[in-house]
């Protein structure tokens, strides 16, 4: 890992810390590949189960696709968030990070970046596979934007709640219980926007949902980084 010289500018230090933390996670993942492979396998299994759970003829498939995709992403995302935070806690990395002379918020943003990267990598692999398996073209530019915005909102609040959940007794189970009720606006807006784009609806109808996604992302990332301190302090 390349050493970065510490500058005296405070903002520079912050961004360096964020990038360093994100890079640490990505580098670790590059070597072990356990997180992404777990998320991927899980995502494929969920799609497989949906194939049997919902009898998807060609017509139903069109309307159900966005819902199935987002259920898949939501569940696999939970897996990624849990593992990412659990690793920090178990190996004592979190304590090390807290001792470092950087703003606590930079830990939040660093984790946000790496968690988002993992989720996006998973989505980037799942989308073409789903396209192939169900013979639907999913490569609409708007759709990719919606998936990115939705993932950002999900991971934004998920990183904060995962940091809380990993410190409770019922660790892995706690995150979905905390996260799902709170992340519903993202799911609603993302599914509606995706579905609208796949069906080729008017932009004016879809833009409403994209606005909600944007608003949610901004609001919750702001809240999360403001209260992250309270969640990790001893």
């Amino acid at each position, binding site marked *: 890992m390349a050493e970065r010289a510490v500058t005296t500018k405070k903002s520079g230090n912050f961004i360096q810390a964020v990038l360093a933390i994100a890079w640490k996670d990505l580098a670790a993942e590059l070597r072990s590949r356990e997180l992404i492979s777990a998320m991927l396998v899980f995502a494929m299994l969920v799609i497989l189960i949906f194939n049997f759970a919902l009898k998807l003829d060609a017509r139903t498939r069109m309307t159900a696709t966005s819902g199935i995709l987002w259920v898949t992403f939501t569940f696999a995302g939970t897996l990624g968030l849990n593992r990412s935070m659990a690793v920090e806690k178990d190996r004592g990395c979190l304590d090390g990070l807290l001792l470092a002379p950087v703003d606590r918020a930079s830990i939040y943003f660093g984790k946000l970046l790496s968690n988002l990267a993992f989720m996006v990598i998973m989505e980037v692999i799942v989308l073409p596979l789903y396209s192939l398996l169900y013979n639907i073209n999913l490569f609409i530019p708007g759709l990719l934007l919606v998936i990115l915005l939705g993932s950002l909102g999900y991971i934004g*609040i998920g990183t*904060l*709640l995962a940091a*809380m959940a990993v*410190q*409770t*007794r*019922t660790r892995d189970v*706690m995150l979905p*219980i*905390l996260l*799902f*009720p*709170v*992340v*519903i*606006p993202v799911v*609603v*807006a993302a599914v*509606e926007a995706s579905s609208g784009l796949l069906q080729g609806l008017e932009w004016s*109808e879809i833009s*409403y949902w994209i606005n*909600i996604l944007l*608003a*949610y992302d901004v*609001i*919750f990332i702001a*809240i999360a980084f403001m*209260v992250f301190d*309270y*969640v990790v*302090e001893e």
Partner: protein
Amino acid sequence: MTKKPLLLLILDILCLVLVAVAAYLALVYAPMEVTMGNVQRVFYFHVANAWVGMLGFIAAGVAGIAYLRTHDVKWDIVEEAAVEISLVFFLIAIVLGSIWARPVWNTWWTWEPRLTTAAITEMIYLAYFMLRGGIEDPGRRARFSAVYTLVGSISVPITFMAIRFFRTIHPVVIGTQSAAAQGGFNMTPHMKVAFFFSLLAFTVVFIDLFWHRIRLGHLSNQVEDLKQKVME
């Protein structure tokens, strides 16, 4: 152990009286509604409970922020009390609403914006208690609860706004879209009396139960402190 304040005792008795009067007004005094029949009477208590649940919800949000700013444990007690009683009031409102919906909408439940938001709010409250149950350290428990209350309070209004648009562009298959509370029927003066009196009665019940629950929280904390001292 501190004695129950006299004011609280008076409030207890006042609550019983008010609820009894409200029940009489709702069940006997108010006239029967033309289209829905007697089941409409559920509406008086249903709206009152939902309104009071809302009060609890807001109180919890405020207490959460107050705790994060002051780290004073009394705000944690207030917040837990608010969430707990709000949980029960919302549950009553949902059940009463269901009872009303069955004959009028021909279904026990529909995924209409307000109902869906109520269900999500209940889930957030339940998650809140599961979170509290999973943390031993009181300081950490208080901080995490406050953070989750904050996150939940902001997420619920956004959810409501998002779903409202969602559900109005898709047709509702069963029943009508207008609910009684939107002025689907006009209230006669007698009905208005019953309605506002119910609102008043349940607001007083809310204050009474809130006070009791806060007292309980303080006493519970005292017991914990004593336990710690004995174990040392």
